[in-house]
């Protein structure tokens, strides 16, 4: 059995969670498939007690779901390493608590994007949604971002499922950069972008590798936008609410593919596959296209 399966499990009690998780995990380990459970400490504890099994890897979801791009690529790295028979099985419980509206929207897009990124992988990902704690819109959108639902051992298709291109392609709202943002109104070359971002990142408290990461992400974004357009681009960088934001804007570019940087790269280059790195390095990446061109926004939390 191979191919990608992505299911939501909307549950409202510990028993309901276990009625899905126990058979899912047991079937995997019995078949010799790798099984990873990324869930709340409470659910990990429940499952461990109900079905002790050393072959299952447990990860606390609060340390795993740090940033949509990074989490996607960390999952992908694990799935890619699975070359054996069958599928790699994952229970992945996204963290929704404490997210801003923009972050919540980004994690919903993450769920939808998995359908594209993992399309050619041998993996089975089940995402539990706890109706006792999660807002109604998060639960409702789970049925729009997962092709099917797994309740107990019963699979039903989600009638509300929306094509990822439609779901992710919905226009992202993006605030205007503040008037006092640092500006690089034109970039002589990629080094210009890197130098500008490195210097201003440091000023705003992103030191060492964090600043280097933002500069590297901005370089990939600038390279992509230059390649897609006439080379004109501008960069703005500022800090607000302990987040350093860097906008790279190209007036002549219209990005048609909302999954740019989310399609697994190959050894041969493909336009935009540098964004695979940018999505991994940054805490957040948004793309907005309008009549003024395209803006790719990168965000990094300031160092504590």
């Amino acid at each position: 059995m191979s191919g990608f399966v992505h299911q939501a499990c909307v549950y409202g009690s510990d028993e309901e969670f276990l009625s899905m998780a126990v058979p899912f995990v047991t079937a995997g380990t019995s078949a010799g498939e790798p099984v990873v459970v990324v869930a709340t400490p409470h659910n990990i504890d429940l499952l461990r007690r109900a079905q002790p099994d050393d072959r299952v890897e447990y990860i606390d979801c609060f340390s795993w779901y740090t940033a949509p791009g990074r989490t996607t690529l960390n999952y992908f790295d694990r799935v890619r390493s699975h070359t054996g028979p069958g599928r790699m099985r994952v229970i992945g419980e996204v963290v929704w608590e404490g997210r801003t509206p923009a972050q919540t929207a980004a994690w919903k897009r993450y769920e939808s994007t998995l359908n594209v990124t993992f399309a050619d992988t041998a993996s089975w990902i089940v995402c539990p949604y706890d109706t006792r704690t999660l807002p109604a819109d998060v639960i409702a959108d789970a049925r729009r971002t997962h092709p099917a639902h797994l309740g107990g051992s019963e699979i039903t298709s989600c009638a509300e499922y929306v094509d990822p291109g439609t779901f992710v392609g919905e226009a992202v709202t993006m605030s205007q950069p503040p008037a006092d943002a640092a500006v690089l109104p034109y970039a002589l070359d990629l080094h210009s972008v890197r130098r500008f971002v490195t210097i201003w990142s440091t000023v705003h408290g992103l030191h060492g590798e964090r600043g280097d990461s933002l500069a590297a992400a901005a370089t990939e974004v600038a390279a992509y936008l230059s390649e897609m357009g006439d080379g004109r681009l501008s960069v703005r960088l500022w800090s607000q609410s302990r987040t350093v934001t860097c906008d790279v804007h190209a007036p002549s570019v219209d990005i048609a593919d909302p999954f740019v940087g989310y399609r697994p790269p190959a050894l041969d280059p493909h336009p935009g596959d540098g964004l695979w790195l940018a999505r991994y390095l940054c805490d957040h990446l948004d793309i907005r296209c309008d009549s003024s061109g395209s803006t790719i926004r990168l965000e990094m939390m300031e160092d504590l």
Partner: protein
Amino acid sequence: MARSYCSGFAVRCGHHACVPYARREDLLALFGVHLTAALECGEKILFVGEDAGSMLEQLPLATSATESLVARGQLATRPVLDGFGPAADPDRVVAVLRAEAEAATFAGYLGLRVCVDVPWIESDLAKLLACEQRITALLADELTEVALICHYDSGLLEESIELAVRAAHPITLDAVRAQRREPLLHLVPLRERIGLHVRGEIDRTNVEEFAAVLRSVHRAGENLHLELEELRYADVAAVRLLAQTANLFPNGHRLVLHSPAPIVLTTLKIYGWDRLPTLVIEGGDI
């Protein structure tokens, strides 16, 4: 110790440089370099010269870009820097530079780059040189947030005077070579094994140069070693080149990367290229 050459992009706050120029177009191009360098470094830039305003209009930039820089106060022009030039007055120049630097810092800029097309009259030479020397000391010790770049029309200078002008500055830039960036990448063949010591940065703008040298040192049937501890940055295109190179190696032969930077290791890992059997990493922590 006076340096005979560096790029205009390498001038930093605290530097006091002179650029003797022969052609007006070189001065214009240099102003463009100084503007770019200042913007990259988050500095305010002040162009000083009789026709600084009109030169700005001749720069190959969108008018809207320069207008918005002027409007936000990051870019300014002055016909003269008070006290600098004919009837030079060192105290006056120092006071003016201090005030300009203070205003730039207050506005949130990370420094002030002052580019002067120095007007001069031979009779004022001694005063002017005294002024330059005073500025050198000032920038080195006190006004370390200011870079001053003095452009002299060498057509107006006798050779002996030009030598004196150069001697009054710790850095002299060649007007043509200063328009280029200093090379980002330095490649040196290894002596004891086949490979390269790689220093600097590689991105899509110089990856072809790197590829060509890589091809030239590669010997079929031999491992290829790259010493990367001084490679500060490599973009995805550069890391992909490493992976593609390794992928072409026959079994039993390896591309060995010694001490790659975290960004190289991260890229190899998340693109899955660290799994290539012909690519070996020695040293370097992710």
